[in-house]
């Protein structure tokens, strides 16, 4: 890896994520019911909540995979998926939204690697397709990122030849190739066999200490306690309480939080 590429990797600035009064509904079902959340640069935020509480939807609203009915999201002050026109918000064109997403990392529960591309091409695809790097540059970047997640020897493999834990680490490298200011994790270890969870959490922990802004939806309470700067507990599309893990996890003030924690711990 050349010095410039390494430098290029290092100069990514951690982003601020602001969610303003976001409402999202499907028909009459309210999934998100007025969410306000600010994630400071470099902060690691873990979102907890029972299934169906809207935590995945919140994550998907942040990179505009889901459009909120009311409210908006901004990253480093830039509105996501919409633009301001006078005192109204107008939806952005598809191309502009795709460009914005190119700066937001997203890691799926089911990895969603491209099965017909090699591991190296999976990681190198986005920088090449968006014209940010030439093919050789992107592949060099990809090799470096794969080494960082401990898969330097798997560059030529196809995703289905890897274990679940390895696939998820490739997916994290793929997200890192965007050089994102923030990475969103949607239950990154829920589809994994128990003995493979550790290797993925280790990679996320490495990212957490490197100062990238992370928003993580997970059920791993122990992991949340270990890496989170802040824990946000969501139920019924609303934030019930939030704070450092020592408060939310150890001395929850709310009945619903206590109830949830007693079930998952």
């Amino acid at each position, binding site marked *: 890896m050349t010095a410039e590429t390494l430098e290029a990797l290092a100069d990514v600035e951690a982003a601020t994520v602001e969610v303003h009064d976001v409402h999202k509904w499907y028909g009459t079902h309210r999934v998100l019911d007025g969410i306000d959340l600010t994630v400071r640069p470099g902060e690691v935020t873990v979102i907890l909540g029972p299934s169906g509480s809207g935590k995945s939807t919140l994550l998907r609203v942040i990179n505009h*995979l889901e459009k909120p009915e009311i409210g908006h999201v901004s990253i480093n002050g830039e509105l996501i998926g919409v633009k301001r026109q006078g005192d109204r918000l107008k939806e952005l064109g598809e191309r502009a939204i795709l460009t914005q997403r190119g700066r937001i990392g997203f890691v799926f529960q089911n990895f969603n690697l491209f099965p*017909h591309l090699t591991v190296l091409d999976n990681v190198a695809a986005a920088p090449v397709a968006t014209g940010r790097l030439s093919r050789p540059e992107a592949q060099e970047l990809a090799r470096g990122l794969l080494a960082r997640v401990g898969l330097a020897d798997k560059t030529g493999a196809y995703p*289905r*030849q890897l274990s679940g834990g390895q696939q998820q680490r490739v997916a994290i490298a793929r997200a890192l190739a965007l050089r994102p200011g923030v990475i969103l994790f949607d239950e990154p270890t829920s589809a994994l066999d128990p003995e493979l969870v550790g290797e993925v959490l280790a990679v996320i922990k490495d990212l957490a200490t490197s100062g990238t802004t992370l928003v993580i939806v997970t059920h791993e309470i122990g992991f949340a306690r270990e890496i989170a700067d802040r824990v946000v507990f969501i139920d019924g599309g609303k934030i019930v309480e939030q704070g450092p893990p020592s408060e939310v996890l150890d001395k929850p003030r709310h009945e619903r939080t206590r109830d949830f924690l007693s079930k998952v711990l």
Partner: protein
Amino acid sequence: MSESPGATVTLPEAPTSDEPPKPLTAQRVVPLRRPGRWIATAVVLVLVAQFVHGLVTNPFYQWARWSYWFLRPTILDGLLITLEVTAFSAVLGLVGGIVLALARLSRSPVLRAVSWTYVWALRSIPLIVVLIFLYNFSALYKTLSLGIPFGPAFFTFDESKLATDMVVAVVGLSLNEAAYAAEVVRGGILSVDQGQHEAAAALGLPKGYQFRRIVFPQALRSIIPNYVNQLIGLIKGTSLVFYVSLLDLFGSAQTMGSTYPGDIVPLLLVVTVWYLILTSIVSVIQFYVERHYARGATRSLPSTPLQKLRTGLSDLRTRIRREAAV
């Protein structure tokens, strides 16, 4: 079931012999004999032999005339026409099918409705009707113009010069082919996991790139077998162009057959063998194309016939060696 300690399991007494019986673990399992399968195989072999014998010895087929006709220039000219019409219609039909499938999957209700109606109409009208209709098209519309809709025309074509027999045949077959290809392509695109679309969108890949590099290559896995099916139908379907006075493989044989009525059967056999050759070539190509697009979908690629032959031979060799050793 659990055994209480101390309980003994009684095995049937082995027949006493001087030699101590081998321990069970060291013995090879004798494969089950299947006499029914052997009998069925024998019956089928006899039937096949009878059929081949009849094919070769029955004077009705006139194999001498068959070899006379098989490589005649008229037949080869017809074969060339068949190949040309098939190639043009296959490509145009597939392109049309992709466009129609994308229209059908688009968010615009007008595009969806137009695509649906096209497929509905062209699948309902018999191909022969489409061809004969197009053949008479120049009588309905004397000229074709290219210009602003309902406004002035920039180019004007004389229809009767534009619509040669070849063009009529290719246009007719392509129109028909596109309707079927549209459904094949649409099915292929729908078979791609939703997570792939999401991942491509989440990475911010440009829309065109998402389709060309992520979705379509994966869709091809299910498109190829269906489209080859379609293609084989098309190869045979080209025999209908005879009715718009284009002398394809079938057409030439048919014409020769009316000139030499005694040779109709060998001529039909010539046509049959040529169609068999064409579909066989397509099947071989299909195998390798499918294998190409199977990369990553399966943990290991299916072996080619040559590889199969090689492993088959080496298996046979080890088996013979083992049998000889026993």
